[in-house]
């Protein structure tokens, strides 16, 4: 089956769908705009960076985070759609986790925002499973042969976030300074956190 005029520009189709739903009173323009604005401006990887920095600075928090990601993340005020079942996996010198959603684009929105385009790309979604070491190398992350790579597949049941290793030379940094070091890519597992 084809949907309404598949050959018509998606911008036009999106407008058609929105206008019909708004006319029928099924969708409110303000509600739509609020969601868009929230994810464009307020929810993004800086939330996850604050979670990681807290975990590095506070071993008790790290323990709670690894035991129950969703609850520990909500402690910092981060919750919302796609955040119901967040599992946080710690990277270590011996085990490196990297996250994918092979079927679509499941991603922990409250801590990382919406996924980057490469995360949604068919090539990343298939290749990271088949040849993770090569794909990570393309991201600039060369891992030694002694490091086990675990590729974890996010879904509606579980959305993964990586707790990267704290870089050396950061003992004197405040939690806020630590947060500025943490990148989205490190929390997906395609990068490590670089020392300042």
């Amino acid at each position, binding site marked *: 089956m084809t949907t309404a005029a598949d050959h018509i520009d998606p911008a036009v189709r999106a407008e058609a769908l929105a206008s019909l739903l708004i006319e029928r009173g099924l969708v409110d323009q303000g509600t739509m705009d609020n969601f*868009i604005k929230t994810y464009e401006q307020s929810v993004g990887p800086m939330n996850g960076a604050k979670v990681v920095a807290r975990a590095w600075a506070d071993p008790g928090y790290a323990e709670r985070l690894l035991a129950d990601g969703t609850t520990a993340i909500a402690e910092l005020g981060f919750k919302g759609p796609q955040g119901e079942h967040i599992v946080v996996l710690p990277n270590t010198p011996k085990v490196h986790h990297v996250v994918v959603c092979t079927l679509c684009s499941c991603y922990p929105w409250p801590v990382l925002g919406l996924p980057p385009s490469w995360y949604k790309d068919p090539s990343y979604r298939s290749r990271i499973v088949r040849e993770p070491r090569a794909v990570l190398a393309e991201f600039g992350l060369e891992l030694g042969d002694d490091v086990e790579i675990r590729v974890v597949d996010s879904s509606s049941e579980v959305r993964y976030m990586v707790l990267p290793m704290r870089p050396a030379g950061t003992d004197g940094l405040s939690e806020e300074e630590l947060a500025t070091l943490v990148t989205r890519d490190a929390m997906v597992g395609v990068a490590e956190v670089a020392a300042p």
Partner: protein
Amino acid sequence: MNDSAGHADPGYLLDSSGPAAPPRDNGELVFAAPWESRAFGLALALNETGLIDWEDFRQALIREIGDWEAAHPSGEGWSYYECWLRALERTASARALVDPRALADRAAQLAALPAGHDHQGHGHEGHEHEIHNEIPDHP
């Protein structure tokens, strides 16, 4: 910046500058075009009011992505939000929120409007949408 205890303050969520400033974290806009943000906002708004079930939508999205990938082995022409939009059209039709025929008619009407009609905007005159100011005009 706030101290770590300030997380209830919206300012804590809304860093306006520095390495963590949205929306260009790690160098990418959240939406590549206004219609993508519209398709995104529609799905979230329908989910919030319970008019669609998110898991139904997600399954439709998985099917759309799978179908596209099966039909395009080279991966050329990939658009995640086109799959998203098709999944939303199907889900809204299946829930009888829109009539597929009415949707096709409306799309054809809009497509026939003279150039200059703003297909990319948010569809209501006089509404300023400063969020998209930095996005270059879409061809």
